[in-house]
């Protein structure tokens, strides 16, 4: 599969943007600047970048509680994301959603979702909508290994298969549903094995290899767009951090965390691009500096933005 140069570079840029955004959010949250809870995407960057690099601007995604990566990869401006995390009026959703509930239909982002599996039927419905409207759009549902044990997952996959819907189900298997290791709560070896039960292709890929993710997603998205139906892709990956920031890591062996952090997705890919002559070291450095500036600007934008007027809490309920 030939991957265009700009796509190869884009995937590096997206991964770096997610990485630097999340590192900043980690520190800002620890410093008490960001209220509430945050669930960081650190370590899983290759999944969002590899999948979203195959999508058009008007294709749909649904995301999860750990959604910052998907939203950045789908093209969101980190300024308005950061402002949303700060609860500011300038955020994508006027401070009403926060970290777990960012949506922007103009980029096909139908929402991060605080309910595990909550986005899966919504993506399936968006795919039905695209099919009936003959719009050529594809929907992608991102979710974790935990969501694959929810009824919404099983019902949606059956429905999508029955109606040959243009949807791709992307399971980010990071081994743990909150604090429970997946092998304790699932009998089949791979989440992707479950695809067979619904009559759709299923594939398990290395979720820390952005090229492997891209290839699997490219095939699935093309298939969906051609009207050949849904696909389940399981991306094996790992979150560097605990389920949410501030949670004590009592359930993961430290050597497991260290081993996965050594297998992180960005540095090897950057090295690969340089070795292949796709980027020079300097160009790669410039890309990284560029995203750091964007993230810094986003923090300043968020800090300097006004909080919403309290009475705006009563707006936006009804259409």
């Amino acid at each position, binding site marked *: 599969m030939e991957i265009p140069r700009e796509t190869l570079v884009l995937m590096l840029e997206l991964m770096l943007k997610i990485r630097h955004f999340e590192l900043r959010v980690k520190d800002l949250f620890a410093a008490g600047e960001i209220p509430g809870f945050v669930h960081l995407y650190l370590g899983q960057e290759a999944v969002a970048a590899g999948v979203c690099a195959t999508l058009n601007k008007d294709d749909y995604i649904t995301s999860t509680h750990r959604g910052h990566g998907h939203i950045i990869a789908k093209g969101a401006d980190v300024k308005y994301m950061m402002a949303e995390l700060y609860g500011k009026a300038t955020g994508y959703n006027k401070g009403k959603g926060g970290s777990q509930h960012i949506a922007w239909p103009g980029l096909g982002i*139908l929402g991060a979702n605080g309910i595990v599996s909550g986005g899966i039927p919504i993506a399936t419905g968006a795919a039905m909508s695209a099919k009936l409207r003959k719009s050529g759009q594809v929907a992608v549902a991102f979710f974790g290994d935990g969501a694959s044990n929810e009824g919404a997952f099983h019902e949606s996959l059956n429905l999508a298969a029955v109606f040959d819907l243009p949807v791709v189900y992307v399971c980010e298997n990071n081994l743990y549903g909150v604090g429970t290791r997946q092998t304790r709560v699932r009998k089949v070896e791979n989440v992707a094995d479950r695809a067979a039960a619904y009559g759709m292709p299923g594939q398990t890929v290395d979720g820390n290899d952005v090229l492997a993710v891209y290839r699997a997603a490219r095939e699935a998205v093309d298939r969906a767009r051609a009207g050949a139906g849904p696909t389940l892709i399981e991306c094996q990956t790992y979150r560097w951090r605990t389920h949410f920031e501030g949670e004590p890591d009592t359930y993961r062996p430290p050597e497991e965390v260290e081993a996965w952090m050594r297998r992180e997705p960005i540095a090897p890919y950057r090295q690969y691009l340089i070795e292949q002559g796709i980027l020079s070291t300097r160009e790669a450095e410039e890309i990284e500096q560029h995203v750091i500036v964007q993230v810094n600007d986003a923090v300043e934008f968020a800090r300097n933005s006004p909080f919403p007027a309290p009475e705006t809490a009563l707006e936006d309920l009804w259409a």
Partner: protein
Amino acid sequence: MREISFSQAIVEATAEEMRRDPTVCVWGLDIGPYGGAFGCTRGLYEEFGPERVIDMPISELGYVGMGVGAAATGLRPVVELQFSDWITLPSDTLINQASKMRYMFGGVLSVPMVLRAPVGGYLAAAGQHSNSFESMFAHIPGLKVVLPSTPYDAKGLLKSAIRDNNTVLFFEHKKLYETKGPVPEEEYTIPIGKADIKRPGTDVTIVAYAFMVRKSLAAAEQLAQEGISVEVVDLRTVSPLDEEAILTSVKKTQRLVIVQETWRRCSVGAEVAAIVAEQALDYLDAPVVRVTAKDVPIPFSPVLENYVLPQEADIIAAVRRVLRA
């Protein structure tokens, strides 16, 4: 004026909206060639075909959730649940998704979905096919909840519900489906959130909705023979609630009986009583009386069910009570 049944009114409203707007589509269990368990989609499959009239597997969470996703992306799905009792299965998609998506996302999208579902008892259908869950959903900000009592209201309100840009739960009482009433051939709609005085009167106000409107009208007719003038206010929509219509009638009659088929505790009737207590207590000449189901699951045996659900005699007794006070 011609008369049609409540279920025919539902079919007509849906068909007219499907002809008017190509983004309107219908899905649910047995709603295709089968025509719907209560006949409310009869003929739609033949006219609009399998692309817009879609038979679903028994996967309420899946296909109601799909309705939410489709509504957020340019369709106006009318989703039918075969029995409203099963609304517990897709409740997350209604309570945590559909009702909140617009608000939580700062108004950047909307979810114009209609969920149609049969409610109610008096059919010896027991605890899992007789429920009326409107109070639970009226509690949720962001959902509209409609319960028509006549074919005329059903048609006009369903057309409004389909055109509404919010999620509307449209509950149809099973005992009403075969009832007939005048429905004009020409186009009309009825605004959501407006009550209707089904019988004007001066001595007592009865606030009711859905099948209880018929029972209240029958009771009012009987009381009229004794010279008691009952005004029957049909809420038609329990969220949003037409507070003005309730208060205007209560201020006129100064006596209030609330009749609802569902349970008493934390219910629509409790809300109506609270509104009157807050805004019109000084007008009341007697304490408010509520006629409701008793707070137990709906039992099977007709003897038990009739004991639990409100009867015409209970309404008459309630009216006499507020008049005696």
